[in-house]
C-alpha cells in the first residue's frame, strides 16, 4: 500500500514538475496559468464557464503581458475634452457683484432656455446641454460688449468645425468704425527712368457699389461667431454688396476656419469670414419672419416721400397674438421683418450712374441727367413686413412648409414654419412669442443641381486689317522681276526728264 501511495505521489510530483516546466518561448508555465485561470473563474463566477474558458484563458495570458508593459510609465495625453473643459470652466464662474447687476431692469441677454424649449417642440435644436452652454457663452458676450440687444441667430455647420452665431445691436453712438481696407490703395506711380513706357490699360473697372453704413440695410446688425461655447467670440466684418452678389453665384461648404480663403469661381472678394457674413445676410433677409401684426411700420419717416422703402419698424404694443391653427394654416399670417436684398447687393438701391460729388448740383443739371439714355432702372424690392404668401416659388418648390408641433395635444402646440429655400431655417410662434433660428450648412436650395457660371469668352486681341495681315515673303525671282521693272521705270522717267530738259532748254 505504502509503495502504491508513494508511487502515486511520485507520479503526481513528476506531473507537477512537468506542469511547472516553463515554456521556452513565453517563459510561462502551465501550472501557474491554470491556477490563475481557476482563480479567475472562482472570483468572477461567469455563467456557462465551460463555454468561455478559452477566452478567459486568453485574458489571463494577456493580463500577464499587460503587467509587464505597464512598467513603462505612460506619458499623460491631454485630450481635446480636457482642453475644452479648461476653457469652458470660466462659463460657470459666478461674478462676485452679481447681486447688484440683477437689479438692473433690462438685460440684452435673451432667454435661450425658453427658446430651446420651444425649438425642441418644433423638432429643431442643438441638444439641451449644448443649448445651456451657448446660453452661458451669450451671457459672457453680453457682459464683455456694450450691446443694446442680442439674440442667438443660429449655427452654421462646417466641415472641420461649426460656427455659433449671435446677432447683436450696438447702443446708439457706440458703433466702432471699422478700418476700411480698400481706401489706402494708391495708384503706383510710373517710374520716369523708363524711356519707353508700356501702354496703359484703358480698362476701367465698374465702380464698386458702396457698402451700407453700419446699422442700416444688410449691415443693420453685427454678428459674433464662436466655434465652441467658451471660446472667444469673434466679430464678423460688415458685408459689402460685391460679397453678396458673389456669394449668390457660388456654392461652397464652410470649413470652420474664419481666415480660410474661399477658392471659387467667380472669385469671392474676401475670406471665409466675409463669406459667412454674406450668407448670414442672405439667410436673414430670406427667412427672418414674425407673426403678422407683431411689428408695425415705424412712424419717424413720415416726412419722407414714398420713393424710399420703409426700413424701420417697431414692436406693436397692441399685438394680441394669433391663434396657432391660423398661423400654421395660412402663410399670410407671417411677415418678413428683414429687408429684402436687391439684385445690386444692397437693401436700398443706389444709383451708380450718379458720380459722387455731383449730388449737390443745381436743378438744371439734374434735369439734364434725367435725359441721359443709360439711366438705370431703380431696383425695388418688396416692402418691409410683406406677407410670406407673396414669396416666389423656386424650382417648383413652395418656399415654406408650416406645421403644428403636436397633433395629439394641439391645444398647447406651437406653430412651426420651415423654409424650403434655406434648409435649416425655422421659425415658431406661440401666442405673443416667436423666434427664428438657423441651423444648417449655410447653403441655399439649388433645385436640380448647381452649374457653376461659365468663364467669359476670350476677348479679341486686335481688329483684323490689311496693315497687320501677314504676307508671303517674295522669292528671289520675284524680286529680280520687280527690280528690273523698277529700273525700266526709272530709265523711262530719266528719258522723259532729259527730253523735258531739252525742251526747256529750247525755250530759253
Amino acid at each position: 500500500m505504502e509503495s502504491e501511495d508513494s508511487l502515486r505521489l511520485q507520479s503526481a510530483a513528476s506531473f507537477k514538475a512537468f506542469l511547472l516546466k516553463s515554456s521556452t518561448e513565453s517563459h510561462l508555465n502551465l501550472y501557474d496559468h491554470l491556477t490563475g485561470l481557476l482563480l479567475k473563474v472562482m472570483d468572477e463566477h461567469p455563467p456557462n464557464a465551460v463555454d468561455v474558458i478559452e477566452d478567459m484563458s486568453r485574458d489571463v495570458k494577456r493580463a500577464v503581458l499587460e503587467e509587464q508593459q505597464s512598467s513603462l510609465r505612460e506619458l499623460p495625453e491631454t485630450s481635446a475634452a480636457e482642453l475644452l473643459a479648461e476653457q469652458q470652466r470660466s462659463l460657470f464662474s459666478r461674478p462676485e457683484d452679481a447681486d447688484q447687476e440683477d437689479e438692473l431692469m433690462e438685460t440684452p441677454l435673451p432667454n435661450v432656455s425658453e427658446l430651446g424649449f420651444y425649438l425642441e417642440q418644433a423638432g429643431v435644436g442643438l441638444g439641451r446641454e449644448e443649448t445651456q452652454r451657448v446660453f452661458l457663452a451669450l451671457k459672457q458676450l453680453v457682459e464683455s460688449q456694450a450691446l443694446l440687444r442680442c439674440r442667438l441667430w443660429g449655427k452654421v455647420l462646417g466641415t472641420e468645425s461649426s460656427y455659433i452665431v449671435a446677432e447683436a445691436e450696438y447702443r446708439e453712438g457706440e458703433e466702432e468704425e471699422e478700418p476700411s481696407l480698400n481706401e489706402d490703395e494708391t495708384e503706383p506711380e510710373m517710374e520716369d527712368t523708363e524711356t519707353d513706357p508700356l501702354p496703359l490699360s484703358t480698362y476701367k473697372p465698374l465702380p464698386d457699389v458702396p457698402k451700407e453704413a453700419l446699422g442700416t440695410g444688410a449691415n443693420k446688425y453685427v454678428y459674433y461667431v464662436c466655434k465652441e461655447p467658451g471660446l472667444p467670440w469673434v466679430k464678423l466684418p460688415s458685408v459689402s454688396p460685391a460679397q453678396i452678389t458673389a456669394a449668390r453665384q457660388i456654392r461652397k461648404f464652410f470649413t470652420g476656419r474664419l481666415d480660410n480663403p474661399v477658392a471659387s469661381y467667380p472669385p469671392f472678394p474676401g475670406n471665409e469670414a466675409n463669406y459667412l457674413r454674406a450668407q448670414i445676410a442672405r439667410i436673414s433677409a430670406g427667412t427672418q419672419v414674425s407673426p403678422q401684426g407683431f411689428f408695425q411700420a415705424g412712424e419717424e419717416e413720415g416726412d419722407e416721400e414714398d420713393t424710399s422703402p420703409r426700413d424701420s419698424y417697431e414692436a406693436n404694443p397692441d399685438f394680441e397674438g394669433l391663434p396657432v391653427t391660423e398661423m400654421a394654416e395660412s402663410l399670410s399670417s407671417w411677415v418678413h421683418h428683414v429687408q429684402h436684398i436687391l439684385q445690386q447687393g444692397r437693401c436700398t438701391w443706389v444709383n451708380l450712374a450718379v458720380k459722387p460729388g455731383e449730388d449737390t448740383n443745381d436743378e438744371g443739371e439734374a434735369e439734364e441727367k434725367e435725359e441721359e439714355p443709360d439711366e438705370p432702372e431703380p431696383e425695388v424690392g418688396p416692402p418691409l413686413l410683406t406677407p410670406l404668401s407673396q414669396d416666389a416659388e423656386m424650382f417648383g418648390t413652395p418656399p415654406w412648409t408650416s406645421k403644428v408641433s403636436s397633433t395629439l395635444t394641439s391645444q398647447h402646440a406651437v406653430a412651426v414654419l420651415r423654409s424650403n429655400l434655406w434648409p435649416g431655417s425655422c421659425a415658431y410662434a406661440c401666442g405673443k412669442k416667436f423666434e427664428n433660428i438657423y441651423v444648417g450648412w449655410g447653403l441655399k436650395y439649388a433645385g436640380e443641381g448647381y452649374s457653376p457660371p461659365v468663364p467669359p469668352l476670350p476677348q479679341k486681341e486686335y481688329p483684323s486689317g490689311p496693315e497687320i495681315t501677314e504676307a508671303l515673303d517674295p522669292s528671289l525671282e520675284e524680286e529680280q522681276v520687280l527690280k528690273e521693272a523698277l529700273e525700266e521705270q526709272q530709265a523711262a522717267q530719266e528719258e522723259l526728264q532729259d527730253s523735258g530738259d531739252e525742251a526747256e532748254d529750247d525755250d530759253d
Partner: protein
Amino acid sequence: MDSNSLYYSLELVAGSGSTLNVERRTALQTSLVILKKNYKFHRVLFWGKILGLKEDYFIAQGRGEDELQDKKNLYSFNCMDWFLLPPATESMKEKVSKIKSRFIGDPSFVYEHIEIRRQGERDDATEEVVIKVNEESRLAVTVHQIDDEVSVVPRGAFVKSPHGLVQMNRSFGGLSHSEAGKLDNFLHFSEAKNLKKKSILEMGDLNPAIDFLDVLSDDIPKGSWSLQLECASKVFVLRSLLWLGLSFYHVPMTPQHGYVYIGDGIKNLDLPFML
C-alpha cells in the same frame, strides 16, 4: 440608431440641428416595441426622418439574425402606424434616378418624368416616354441608397462568422480616442465593393472577421465626410457631405454608436464644386 438607446443618442447627434420632440420620442418608444414583436425582428433601429413638403416620413429599420442582409424598412407619419416599404429593385432604382425634386409627403403621389428617346438611326424620329413612379417606391429606393452609400459603423463593432453571418460583436469596447480621430476606423455598413480591389499587401493587415466592409477613407471624392468632436469634445460625430443630414456618433471607449438621417432625401450631387 438602436431603439433602446434612442433617448440619449438623439441628444448626441443634435449638433446637426435636428431632433425629435418629446411627443415623437415617446411615441417611438411605444410603437417600436410593438413593431419588434409583430415582425419578429431581433433588433429595431430608428433610422431617421425624410422631410417632405407637406408631411415628414419617419423611417424605422428592423434587423433579423444577419444584421447586414436581413433588413426591413418601414415608414410612418405619426410614429405609431408603420407601413412596410417594398424592397428596392433595379428597375425601381432606374426610374427613381430621374426624379430630383423634393419629397411631397404623400406615398401615393405619382411623379411623372418625360424622357425623349431616339428611335432608330434617324434623328427626327423621337418618342416621348413618360416614366411614372410613385412616392412610396421612391422612398424605398432612397432609404436603400442612403443605407448603401453612407451607413457607418466603427471598426470591430460587427463580426462576420466563417459561415458568413454578420452579427454584433459583443466584446466591442469602442475605439480609442486616437483611433476614432481617423476615418480608417469607420466602415460602410453595406456589401463591400472596394475590398476586392485592394492589393495583397494591404489585405495582409486586415482581419477577415472584422474587416469585411469598405473603409470610409477610400470614398471618392476625398473629403466627403466631416469628422468632428462634439458635446464638450466627448463624442465623435461624422457627417456625410454626400447625403446632407446623415449624422453618425460614437462615444470613444464605449460600444455606443449609431447613425440617423434627418434630411430632405436628396443626394448632394454638387459636392465636387463645394469642397
